[in-house]
């Protein structure tokens, strides 16, 4: 697994009462642990698993920001993302791709975190548009975050303001490639560094009332 670069930000000690999460398994197949553990087989299994995952990215229908306007053409006839095995799902419980379509207001960030945590693993985040990278147009706004990766693990960024549907398709193809190679491991990173993420989130969201991450 590729080690991801941790963004540098001074963080206080892990917040009190953060519940330890379940040990990180290799995957999310039911009963996978019972399978024979020969390394070659394990590797082959992982490849197959990743290939399947890449072919069925289900996107949560949550237009968090203005980039959502280009998601509609993507889901409808002209750019038709279903031919790539992707579909919009109405609820986080059925999705494994969260598209953060641009800037996030603090108020939205809270909902996005909640939605992300409700998604079953494996799950990936696509940062759509420049404002997820470094604040973009709204860099000096008091109400929008500048870096999404401080709060949630981002697997792919698509630069643009806003990126066209074709750029989104390229972004998703890139995500699929990374999933196939087993490199898109944002959700692992989130779990491994949960305390760091939670501290960042709580530093910004002062009226914190979300349940602990329990998936």
């Amino acid at each position, binding site marked *: 697994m590729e080690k991801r670069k941790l963004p540098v930000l001074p963080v206080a000690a892990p917040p009190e009462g953060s519940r330890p999460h379940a040990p990180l398994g290799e995957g999310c197949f039911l009963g996978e642990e019972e399978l024979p553990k020969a390394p070659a087989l394990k590797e082959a299994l992982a490849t197959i698993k990743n290939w399947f995952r890449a072919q069925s990215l289900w996107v*949560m*229908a*949550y*237009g*968090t*920001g*203005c980039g*959502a*306007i*280009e998601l*509609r*053409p993507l889901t*409808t*006839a*002209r750019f038709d993302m279903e031919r790539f095995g992707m579909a*919009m799902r*109405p609820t*986080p419980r059925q999705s494994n791709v969260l598209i953060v379509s641009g*800037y996030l*207001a603090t*108020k*939205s960030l809270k*909902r996005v975190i909640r*939605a992300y945590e409700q998604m079953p693993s494996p799950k990936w985040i696509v940062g759509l548009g420049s404002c997820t990278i470094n604040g973009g*147009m*709204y860099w*000096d*706004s*008091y*109400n*929008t975050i500048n870096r999404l990766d401080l709060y949630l693990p981002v697997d792919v960024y698509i630069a643009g*303001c*806003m990126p*066209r549907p074709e750029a989104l398709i390229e972004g998703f193809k890139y995500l699929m490639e990374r999933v196939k190679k087993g490199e898109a491991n944002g959700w692992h990173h989130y779990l491994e560094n949960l305390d760091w993420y939670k501290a960042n989130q709580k530093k910004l969201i002062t009226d914190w009332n979300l349940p602990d991450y329990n998936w």
Partner: protein
Amino acid sequence: MTTTETLRRRVQLWFGPQHPGITGNMSVQAWLEGDTLTQGITHVGYLHRAFEKLMERRKFIQSFPIVCRICVPEPDTNEYLLAAALEELSGLDREVPEKALWIRTLVLEMSRLAAMLQVLGGHVGSMGLGVVPNWTYTLRDYVLDRFEELTGARVYHMYTVFGGVRRDLPEGFAERMETEVLAKIEAKLPVIDNAIFDSSVFRKRAIGVGVVPEEWADEMGISGPVVRAMGIPRDTRKDFPYLKYPELDFEVVTTTGSDIYARAWIRRQEIAQSVDLIRQILRRMPTEGPYCAKLPNMLTWTIPPGQTYVRAEASRGEMGYYVVTDGSDKMRRVHVRGPSYVHGVSLLERLIPGTNIADLSPLMVSLQTCPPEIER
């Protein structure tokens, strides 16, 4: 009634922000009795980017890339209004060349067309009919293709600036507009009619639902398709004429019923009207001449103190900009008054009691609530 009974009878439900039926990123806190809504409160702020605050610390020219973000489906109204307000306050309005006025009218009408195609798809989409959005979004995309050709971008055009527009019409634009957009839309409209307005499913869910009483029109300042669906011919393009609209030949579309069906019908008619207007504009537009006035150095431009309110007809209704300048190189205050501010909050909250939960989403689409323009 005991507390338990109250609880049994009354359920609180958050409709959005993460909900496939919500219009944009907003939410309605709703109370239900059975499947009937008894009360609803609109919650916005999920998209609050503080445009007005940011513009107070940006120079005039730097403000104009930011205003188009206030309404994503229809950015050009914002660009035009900011330009119009500042031109009026600076006296630059007298220098805007003829051609620029025509191009601005064209751009506004194109953006109305794109937005109405989108919302017409939304009308049926919100009822779970997935076929029509596939057409209307594609048709909208054809309009966006022309926008891309004209302005250099698909969604955020950043095209209308003080003094005119940023680029001339490309060679052969009118022909491509006709063959690749207008003709295709016109060919598709009867099919859409069949699939929407003749569909018993749509009729059953739309007729008589979400009726806005006529008395509310004046005091609440309801505008756009919502007011025209009441039979009131109110249209900023006619009432407060701007740009080249007085020279164009069109009638305000009205119908009666004031329900979701009527509003969808108005939009369907206005799509045809826009198509016709775009043809008129392209036919009458001068081919020669400058497209932008000579501008002073935008890095140091100052505007004398003053305040004004300008308005234009967006697809959703009357959009207004209140701009105050204080003689410096930045705006003292800019306040954007989108139609959704009234439609999406006060009007929606007044309409919710008695509505079926399943009709909330179509209702919101029919009011065309656009949350970013409420919270800005």
